[in-house]
């Protein structure tokens, strides 16, 4: 080794902070973040199902928390995370089949994922609110 210090004290790669954020890297880390967020969100799913099984006041409690403004805000965030993770997951499955690796295609499919995720989220919420007779 020419210039390195002690083993274990060598500079480690990659230095993420020296890279300019790109659509590929940003969407990649966002896939992980939404995955972790969705794992946390499963707690609410199980809570809601258990509350439905318990019935009575437990279910009324769960509904009031989920239906409150902060509950709806969390659900909105989770719905976007779900649609994003779903769309980008399909993008990953295409890569697994060896397709879409050209730089231009990767950027295009990335933006397509963002547009689809936003679109699906909006459709779901407009549909939900109109089912409740909000419009």
């Amino acid at each position, binding site marked *: 080794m020419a210039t390195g210090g002690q083993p274990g004290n060598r500079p480690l790669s990659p230095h993420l902070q020296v890279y300019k954020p790109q659509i590929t890297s940003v969407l990649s880390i966002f896939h992980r973040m939404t995955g972790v967020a969705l794992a946390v969100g*499963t707690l609410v799913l199980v809570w809601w199902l*258990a509350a439905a099984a318990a019935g009575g006041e437990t279910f009324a409690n769960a509904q009031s928390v989920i239906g409150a403004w902060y509950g709806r805000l969390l659900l909105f965030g989770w719905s976007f995370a779900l649609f994003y993770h779903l769309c980008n997951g*399909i993008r990953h499955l295409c890569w697994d089949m060896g397709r879409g690796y050209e730089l231009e295609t990767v950027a295009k499919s990335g933006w397509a994922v963002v547009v689809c995720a936003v679109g699906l989220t909006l459709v779901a919420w407009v549909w939900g609110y109109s*089912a409740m007779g909000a419009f």
Partner: protein
Amino acid sequence: MSLRTDLGKVRGLGSAKEGVAHWWAQRLTAIALVPLVLWFVSQVVGLAGADLAAVRAWIASPVVAVLLVLLLGTTFHHAQLGLQVVIEDYVHGEACKVASIIIVKFLSVALAAAGIFSVLKIAFAG
């Protein structure tokens, strides 16, 4: 040209000695979750504002109950596989890493069991 030995190729386990089982399971559950999640979201959106009786009636119908059980099992399997990779990448202390993975796996199975039990309780006992 491959530098792998014939025996290594036959075993197909790679340097970590566990092959592609984790990778494959994550893809299989991902493929299964595409239709399951789209079905679930469309159903839940339709349930917006529903009362307890309507929610229970929905869960108790046989097709919904079976799909919910599949959704819960697949979701927690997929989540547990994904969280394991995240932990392996970001938690560097060996003891902390192993402990975190054990907690995530135990919690995932426990939550899946609780969710599936709730669905079955409503389906069988009303």
